[in-house]
Every structure is written in C-alpha cells, then in structure tokens.
C-alpha cells in the first residue's frame, strides 16, 4: 500500500466562502496563460468520470481560432449512485458560476450554459437567482459573461458531452463521432469547454488557494480531493469530500456496515470490487498506482451479504438497455443481449458457459461502441460476472 493512505476527509468544496467576488476579480487580473499553467500544474482531472486533464481542455479551447466560443457546465448527473453535483449546485452555486466565468475568460467565451438534468428542476429557481446576482457583479467588474440554464428532460446519455450538445441543439441526445472534439467543434459547431460541476468547483479552489495546495493532496496521477456519493448498505449514506488515493479497504472500514460484500465504484458504468480485492484497490484515476485504480465519477455503492449480485447486475443492465441512445449496434443490441443472456443463464435456458460468450460480447462493446456508455457496460458486467459467477448461475 505504498501509494495509498488512510482516509482523509477534506473540506474545500462545501467550505462556506463568501468571497467569490474577490476570487473572480483577482483571478481575471491574471493572464489566461498563467491560469492555464496553474491548472495544468495542479494536475486536476475531470470529475465527471472520464478524467481528462482540465487544464489541457481549457488550453485547447483557448487556442482555437477566435470567434464565438462556449463554456458548458455539465450538470446532467445521471450515473446511478451519484448525487454530488446536485449538492454542489444547491449549496455553493457561486463557486460554479465563478469558475465558469474564469473559464470563459481563459477560453475566450462570453456565454456559459448549465445543462441541468430534468430530475433536478427544483434547483432551477434558486440557481437562477444566483445567476442574476452573479451576472450583476460581472457587469460591475466589466466582465462580459452570461450564464443560461438549459434544462434536460430525462436522458442519462445526455451526460456524454457531445450528446449533451446535440440535446442543447434541439436534437436527440445521440453522441457524435469524435474527432472533432468539443474544444474544436462543440455546441453549434463552436469551440466549447465542457466541464463537470465538481471539476469547476475544484478550479475555484485552485484559483483561490493556488495549485500547490491542490496538488499536495492525493497521490501521483490522482491529485487533489474528490466528492464521493456514498449509498447502499452503509450506516452513513451521503456526500463526502475525500483525498484521492485511499484504499478501498480504508473506505469500507469507514463507511461499511461491517458486512460489506462488494463495492460498486464509479456507478453502474464503473467496477464492482469484491471484498477480497478491497485491500488492493486504490481509488483514483488510471495511472501507475499499485493495485487496481478505478475510474471515478465518485459513486460508491456498498452491498452487504444480503444482496444478490445477480439482481444488482440485472438492475444495471436494465438501466443501460433503456438509457442507451440506441444509435450504435454494439450498445443498443449488446445491452439487450446481456440482460436477456444473464436471465437465460439464471433460468437454466442457457448453459453457464454462455457467460463466457457474454463476456466476449462486452469486450466487443468496449472496443467498438461509439461512446462511453456502450464502452463501459463491460466494466460492471465483467467485474460482477467474474467475481460472482456462482450467483449468476444458481
């Protein structure tokens, strides 16, 4: 456990700071390049799930030819087990708005959007009030930046950044071919920075306290803190800001109910880690961490021994079957086959060896699906089927 460490709670994100005005006006006194460097040296990676380096994202858009550009805050939090963005937007909206404006300043965009999932519509009135106040201040300091809320209408796939843009353009939320990436051609074909809500708040922290403070937290390849949405069989469900790099063992020690059988890390599209692998699993981004490092949008769902892993997988697959946009073959048909397939094995209509065929299918889905949804179904499927094979059959 050389690179992981004890669980450390941190309080940056929800720390009550009433100085966003000062943070904003001070930050935009610096040159965009300075701010990009600051972000790059913090090694902040996107907190939505994919983990793309945030500084690089801003840099690419800032380097795109001048003209209309956009900043989008992705608040289409739909991953099962994730609810952190809702909490951020209801508790510290100003940090998000400030970060968006700084991003606009850096990238050369004067229009920001918050794509808010339909399920969180109740947040809209308060958020609009905050935006009014925020824009008023922007005007005062002569910062040309507007923020508009765009409501989603119930589609998990719109959390995928290009699907989100399609949705904003009045279309079906179907992911696009990449390249081009949003930094080249995003919303309405214009260069666009799109960041997750939490990612933006971390940039606020970095701009306020400096990149070193952030970088010093966490471990190599996984710097800083992360919000974890903890749910399932736990005595203390909720949202926790923790330093990255902890071992899953420590996490379960803190949040488990004493009978934790497995933890689903990263939501339905993440991995299921069984008890025997807790001590080898470090929570962070892919990199050269020892043991298993896991992609993380921050969803941590705990399951105790009363839970059937078959039921869990069945639930995930039904979710994916419905929430796939349906355009690409491996995802649309693959999800249906996986769901029907495990049911058939469980019923005895298909032999246990059919699970191997399904595992190979998830590999194909991972290699060939058009976007992250179809690609990542393999994660939960293979980690559950491989670790709880017996439960799939009997």
């Amino acid at each position, binding site marked *: 456990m050389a690179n992981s460490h004890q669980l450390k709670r941190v309080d940056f994100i929800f720390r009550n700071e009433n100085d966003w005005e000062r943070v904003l006006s001070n930050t935009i006194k610096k040159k965009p390049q300075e701010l990009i460097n600051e972000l790059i040296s913090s090694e902040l990676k996107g907190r939505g799930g994919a983990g793309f380096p945030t500084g690089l994202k801003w840099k690419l858009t800032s380097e795109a030819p001048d003209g209309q550009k956009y900043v989008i805050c992705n608040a289409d939090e*739909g991953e099962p087990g994730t609810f952190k963005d809702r909490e951020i937007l209801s508790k510290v909206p100003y940090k998000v708005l400030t970060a968006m404006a700084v991003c606009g300043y850096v990238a050369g965009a004067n229009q920001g959007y918050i794509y808010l999932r339909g399920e969180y519509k109740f947040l809209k009135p308060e958020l609009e009030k905050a935006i009014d106040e925020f824009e008023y201040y922007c005007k005062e300091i002569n910062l040309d930046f507007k923020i508009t809320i765009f409501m989603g209408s*119930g589609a998990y796939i719109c959390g995928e950044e290009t699907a989100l843009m399609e949705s904003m353009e009045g279309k079906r939320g179907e992911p696009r071919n990449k390249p081009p990436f949003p930094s080249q051609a995003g919303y309405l074909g214009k260069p666009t920075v799109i960041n997750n809500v939490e990612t933006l708040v971390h940039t606020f922290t970095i701009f306020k306290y400096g990149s070193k403070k952030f970088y010093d937290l966490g471990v190599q390849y996984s710097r800083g803190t992360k919000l974890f949405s903890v749910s*399932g069989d736990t005595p203390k469900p909720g949202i926790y800001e923790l330093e990255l790099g902890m071992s899953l063992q420590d996490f379960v020690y803190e949040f488990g109910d004493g009978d934790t059988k497995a933890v*689903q890390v990263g939501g339905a599209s993440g991995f299921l880690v069984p008890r025997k692998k807790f001590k080898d699993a470090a929570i962070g981004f892919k990199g050269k961490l020892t043991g298993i490092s896991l992609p993380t949008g921050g969803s941590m769902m705990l*399951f105790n021994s009363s839970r059937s892993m078959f039921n869990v997988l069945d639930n995930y697959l039904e*979710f994916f079957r*419905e929430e796939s946009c349906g355009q690409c073959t491996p995802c649309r048909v693959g999800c249906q086959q996986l769901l029907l397939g495990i049911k058939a094995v469980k019923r005895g209509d298909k032999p246990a060896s059919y699970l191997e065929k399904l595992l190979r299918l998830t590999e194909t889905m991972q290699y060939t699906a058009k976007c992250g949804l179809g690609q990542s179904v393999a994660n939960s499927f293979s980690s559950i089927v491989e670790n709880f094979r017996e439960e799939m059959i009997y």
Partner: protein
Amino acid sequence: MDPIQTLIKDLANKHGRTKESLLPIMQGVVERESYLSERSMVEIAREMDIPAADVYGTATFYSFLETKPTGKYIIRVCKTITCAMKGKTQVLFAIQEMLKIKMGETTPDKRFTLLETNCLGWCHKAPAMLINDNVYTELTPEKVREILSGYMKQNGINQN
C-alpha cells in the same frame, strides 16, 4: 388562435424559433399540458418551421417528454439500484393499491399517472420519487400514502 397555439407562440416568443429552442418549448408545453399531444407537436413544428417528424423523434428520446395523455400529477418512482434495494417495490405496491392503477396507467379521474424512472440522484435517501417536479425521499409505504393523501385532499378527492 386556440389555447395550444397561443401557448406555443408565447413559448416561441420567449425562447426563440431556432432549433436550439425545441427542448425549452416542448418543456414549456409539458409544464402546462403535462404531455405533448399530436396537435401540440404539429403546432411546435409549424411555429419553428421544422419537420413534424423531427419534433416527434426528439420528443420521444426524452423520458420526461410524454407523448401519451397523462394525469395532472405524474408520479415517477425511481427504480435504479439503491432505490430497488431500499424498498421501492413496497412503495410501488402502496401507490398502486391506493390509486387502483397499474404501472404506466392513469387514474380514471385523470389526476395521477404512475411511472417508473431511472436514477433520480437521491441514492443516499432511497427510495425516492418525483411527483411532477417535486422530490420525495426516504419513502415507506406509510409515507407515500400520506403524500398521496395530501395531493388528493388538495384536489378535493374523497378517499373512499
């Protein structure tokens, strides 16, 4: 102009008539009418000068844009993993028993429609449901009966 036309014209005036306004306009109609009828989709297409098929194709992609008639209150019970683990089924039974409808149905008085939905983002307070835009969490059969009684009372429905 009939009320639907007026509503859609007003929404188009507010949000604009470019394609980017399609979702906000459809959401506006759903807010008022609770679903998108064939008629309102035709009017949206006309007002925005886009193909009606596009409106339909886009509307059916989004689970909160109903294209079939619904009740005044749409109950959406979360069925995703944590809610499923924490007693969503019992909650559903309680609702079905109380409203005397099955999943996907609308009460004869057109007040309530019962649907399931995917993760609402309240996993730490599961099970959860939405009634229109309002969230209810940590549901139990008793709690859900109480909530529904509230809605019924508000609408002057006798509970026998």
